[in-house]
């Protein structure tokens, strides 16, 4: 593809993981049908989970995981200095993710409970954006490989990067699924940003909001409808807090 006389530039990509399950990193090695082409389009500089190569001459840093220890702050800042583009990949990096749930508990007690009198260092969970400037956010738990591919295409060719202003419901409907509310379950689909292709409702689980809020969501109506369908305030709150994306309305 050279029809606009633009030369292809292979972005030099480094992947760094912080506190998380590394599921997002694993996604990068998934979507096998295009994996070869994906690896051809980029130059992998640093990707600890699948490669022993190490370097720091990268343009793009893909960050997954949240920040939960002081040394991670330093590491992240050093990465920010080197990276031209810093992408927060996954809900942990974008919002803090499930790891952020721990902030609701007393960390000293938590430590004592898990490690007895050998406590480990830990600080309240932060999103990557709380520590450094983030150029691009790709929320999702886990991140969608399709979206990562689109980012790479964007970086290589400046191809359009889809932005999903609308909520999950649209994609859910386009998968011909039965609405979870009809099944008597709670679903955050109406206020959550689309782009995941609604795997949860399609798989029989209401949306838990891992992608954070859609553009300008109608919270008021959503709360009213959740209440009308018989869900307690606690239930709705628990769910909004789950992935850390809805802090603004909690």
């Amino acid at each position: 593809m050279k029809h606009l006389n633009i030369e292809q530039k292979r972005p030099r990509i480094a992947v760094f993981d912080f506190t998380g399950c590394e599921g997002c990193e694993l996604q990068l090695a998934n979507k096998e049908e295009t994996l070869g082409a994906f690896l051809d389009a980029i130059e992998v500089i640093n990707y600890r989970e699948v490669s022993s190569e190490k370097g720091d001459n990268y343009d793009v840093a893909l960050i997954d995981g949240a920040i939960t220890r002081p040394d991670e702050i330093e590491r992240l800042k050093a990465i920010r200095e080197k990276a031209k583009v810093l992408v927060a990949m996954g809900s942990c990096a974008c919002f803090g993710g499930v790891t952020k749930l721990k902030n609701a508990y007393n960390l000293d007690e938590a430590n004592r409970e898990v490690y007895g009198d050998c406590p480990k260092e830990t600080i309240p969970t932060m999103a990557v954006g709380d520590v450094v400037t983030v150029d691009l956010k790709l929320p999702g738990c886990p991140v969608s490989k399709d979206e990562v591919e689109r980012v790479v295409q964007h970086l290589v060719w400046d191809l359009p990067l889809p932005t999903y202003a609308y909520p999950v419901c649209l994609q859910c409907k386009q998968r011909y699924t039965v609405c979870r509310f009809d099944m008597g379950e709670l679903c955050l689909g109406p206020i959550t940003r689309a782009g995941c292709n609604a795997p949860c409702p399609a798989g029989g689980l209401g949306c838990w909001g891992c992608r954070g809020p859609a553009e300008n969501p109608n919270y008021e109506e959503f709360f009213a409808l959740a209440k009308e369908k018989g869900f307690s305030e606690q239930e709705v709150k628990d769910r909004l807090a789950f992935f850390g994306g809805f802090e603004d309305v909690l």
Partner: protein
Amino acid sequence: MCPLPLRSYDVRLESEMNQPLDFNRLLRLKPVAKVFKSEITGVIRLTEMEKLFHIRIIDDAERERFSFLPGQFVMLEVPGYGEVPISISSSPSNKGYIELCIRKAGTVTNALHRAHRGAKVGIRGPFGTNFPLERMEGQSILLIAGGLGLAPLRAPIFHVTENRSDFRDVHILYGTKDPDQLLFDYQYEEWRRIDDVNIQVIVEQANDSWKGPVGLITKLLDNVTIDPNGTYAIVCGPPVMFKFVCGQLSQMGIPMDRMFVSLERRMHCGMGKCCRCNVGDTYTCTDGPVFDYWSVINLKEAI
């Protein structure tokens, strides 16, 4: 029992197509999806944000068949990036190629701005309504543009200047924010020299080198005297401009159905299908983009 009672219909066979659903001939089906492969034969940098592209349909027969009227637009396809509606900015009498003046605004237009001569793009169209210039023959014409509005206005300007004797007084009024944003500044002189074409340019904010008038475009209208019953106006520019300019024209006595504007909306098809440009019952792409001002003010939420 023998299987397959259902017959497969091939829409490409003409005989089938005249059956129950009564649709058109094979040729008609083509431009719906097929793009005319074209080549960028020249790029002229106009300002920081705008470039003029000369575009030529590669296939000889397709090029021969392609014709348009001033005010119409094409869907310009950059494969891989997307398709955007762009007004044709050149003279309709120009057979070999068209000119498109494009502002850097998003993905597709950015990509175009990086393209060089020789790059291949696609064209569908032309689409939409045109300025009814034949109706204006023998009358005076006000051609008014603000900002990027000069791009669509250029086609009628070409038509009028090329057929100068068909019209009475001709005024071209053009305004932008500042002198750096003036489009086609190299052509004003040429237009000015054409017999009896009155061209005035104004900017909202002057810089050191600017010698001309300063202010809003409506200010230029003060210098124009017209015979309201023998005058048509064509106004192109951002929607806010319509209200002021057309309002003033109205006060000058020009009937609203003799003022024509070109509307802009989001578009994805150009064929009155995607509904993105729809305003109530009106499709900007097929019923417009050229509307008389009376229709516009009757169109709810149009401007």
